[in-house]
């Protein structure tokens, strides 16, 4: 049951939410006070930009909105007396520096272009800029979030499923009864791992299918990337299973297992770039966050999806996961109690 919730339902709900978030594009709000001139080429150009929303109101109301971050700047265009000269006064807020930056470059561009036209140089300017966009695709939040969701479901299945599954089998003496047969303990653990593997493959494929078909998640190399992601999930599961076995071996009590599981999973869900990038963490925390096993997995997955890098770029992170898992398997082997 917990496998179903953490492995299937949560990731699907999450990617649905993230998919919807990803659809909203940046909008810059600019306030225009009544004192501003509106019969000029600059205003006309501003008005034509799709992602700029002009907000006409009185000066006082606009200043208040600026402080609250509801608008990003106040633009007041003053016509100089008698001649067709203008001064553009921009008052920027600092609640959203990124948007302020956008306002800056938009205004500067319009003004520069208008100046060229007005001085008659627009037909043959000395410097021409030629920008071509190679990618028709823009990165959306889903492209960041979906790899994190694969990691999330992987870690959940490997840990919740294994710990609670094994504790149940230990408590009900199912394992003990099987140990009265010539079965080797490793066979049992391998079987456990194999059944988790099947669940994980279904999860990963399901999340990817929903991502690709419903939310247009981008796979740089199509089917090849898809298969590489499935392969990474297998590596990820093998690494995370070590944590599951380690914790399942420590206790026979679900209530004791719960805080242990949270101690291992929660920090990873929060710090490993599952929901937001590790670069947004404080500097001192970043090196820790970047070296968690789930981080390695997330980085590896994003390398071959978002960044479109070759599969070989994931090798250092696979090695990192391998080291983590070795530590866990050794600890598990030393502490595992069957009863």
């Amino acid at each position: 049951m917990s496998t179903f919730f953490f492995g299937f339902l949560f990731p699907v709900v999450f990617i649905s939410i993230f998919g919807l978030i990803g659809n909203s594009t940046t909008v810059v709000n600019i306030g225009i006070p009544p004192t501003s001139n509106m019969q000029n080429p600059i205003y006309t150009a501003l008005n034509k930009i799709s992602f700029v929303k002009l907000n006409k109101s009185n000066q006082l109301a606009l200043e208040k909105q600026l402080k609250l971050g509801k608008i990003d700047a106040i633009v007041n265009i003053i016509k100089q007396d008698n001649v067709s000269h203008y001064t553009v006064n921009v008052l920027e807020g600092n609640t959203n520096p990124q948007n302020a930056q956008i306002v800056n470059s938009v205004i500067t561009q319009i003004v520069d272009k208008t100046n060229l036209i007005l001085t008659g140089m627009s037909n043959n300017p000395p410097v021409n800029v030629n920008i071509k966009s190679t990618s028709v695709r823009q990165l959306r939040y889903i492209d960041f979030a979906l790899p994190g969701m694969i990691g999330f479901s992987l870690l959940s299945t490997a840990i919740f499923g294994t710990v609670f599954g094994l504790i149940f089998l230990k408590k009900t003496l199912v394992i003990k009864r099987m140990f009265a047969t010539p079965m080797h303990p490793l066979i049992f653990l391998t079987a456990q791992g194999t059944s988790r593997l099947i669940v994980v493959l279904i999860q990963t494929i399901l999340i990817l299918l929903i991502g690709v078909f419903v939310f247009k998640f981008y796979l740089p190399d199509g089917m090849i990337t898809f298969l590489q992601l499935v392969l990474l999930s297998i590596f990820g599961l093998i690494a995370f299973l070590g944590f599951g076995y380690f914790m399942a071996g420590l206790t026979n009590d679900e209530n004791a297992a719960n805080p242990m599981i949270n101690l291992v999973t929660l920090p990873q869900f929060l710090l490993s770039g599952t929901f937001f990038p590790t670069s947004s963490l404080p500097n001192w925390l970043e090196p820790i966050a970047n070296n968690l096993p789930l981080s390695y997995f997330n980085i590896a997955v994003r390398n071959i999806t978002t960044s479109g890098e070759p599969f070989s770029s994931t090798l250092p992170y696979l090695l990192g996961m391998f080291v983590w898992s070795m530590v866990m398997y050794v600890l598990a082997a030393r502490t595992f109690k069957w009863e």
Partner: protein
Amino acid sequence: MSKLSTNIIIVNKLTKKFGDFDAVKGISFNVKKGEIFGILGPNGAGKTTTLETIETLQKQTSGEIIIDGVDTLTNSEHVKRIIGVQLQSAGFYPELNLIELLNLFASLYGVDISPMEMLEKVELTDKAKSFPVRLSGGQRQRFSIALTLVNTPKVIFLDEPTTGLDPQARIHLWDMISKINKQGVTVVLTTHYMEEAQKLCNRVAIMESGRIVALDTPDNLIKNLLKSGFKKKIEVKQADLEDVFINLTGRQLREE
């Protein structure tokens, strides 16, 4: 009784410690091939520990156990192949029905079985597709016994097989155990019930705080007690309450 001459199990100076606690304090006994051997004793006497050590589920602190000529400590895998084990309250995979469970255990032993034949031996063919949780107490114990027979063992170990069963189910299980024993399987069982030991067991060992305090056939144990001058305080009745109960409710097996 002359047929029961060779010892299939030899237990020699067996001790088992749990930390500071001595659960089993150097016991020695033999189980003869083909007999039903009972280990009696109050809770905490060391019955289950003794049984599980013989079953190789626990390792002894010291002493030696030989089953069918094989040392359990050095060759536990071989021992596991020739014994069948029923635990006091073993669970089963809840998602598997009886046939699937029998097949699972057959694969753990690496043997081919016909699950329906196994179920027939314990009269559970009508429950073939049921899950263990849907069985009554008696049915579950019978199914546990069917599982112990999967690998056609030479010895089966039954840990309190009738605890918690109603009188009908208990009598039914005794018949079943006798039947299996008559087919040549040696049976070692633990019990709290003296009546069970008296009716079912060829020989019994009585344990008390980790030691065997008596070992003989039930008849001899009683004779020896009488010889020592023991007299029951009240006169022995020709029937007891159990007889009344069985007389009123019949021997017919009930399945709730």
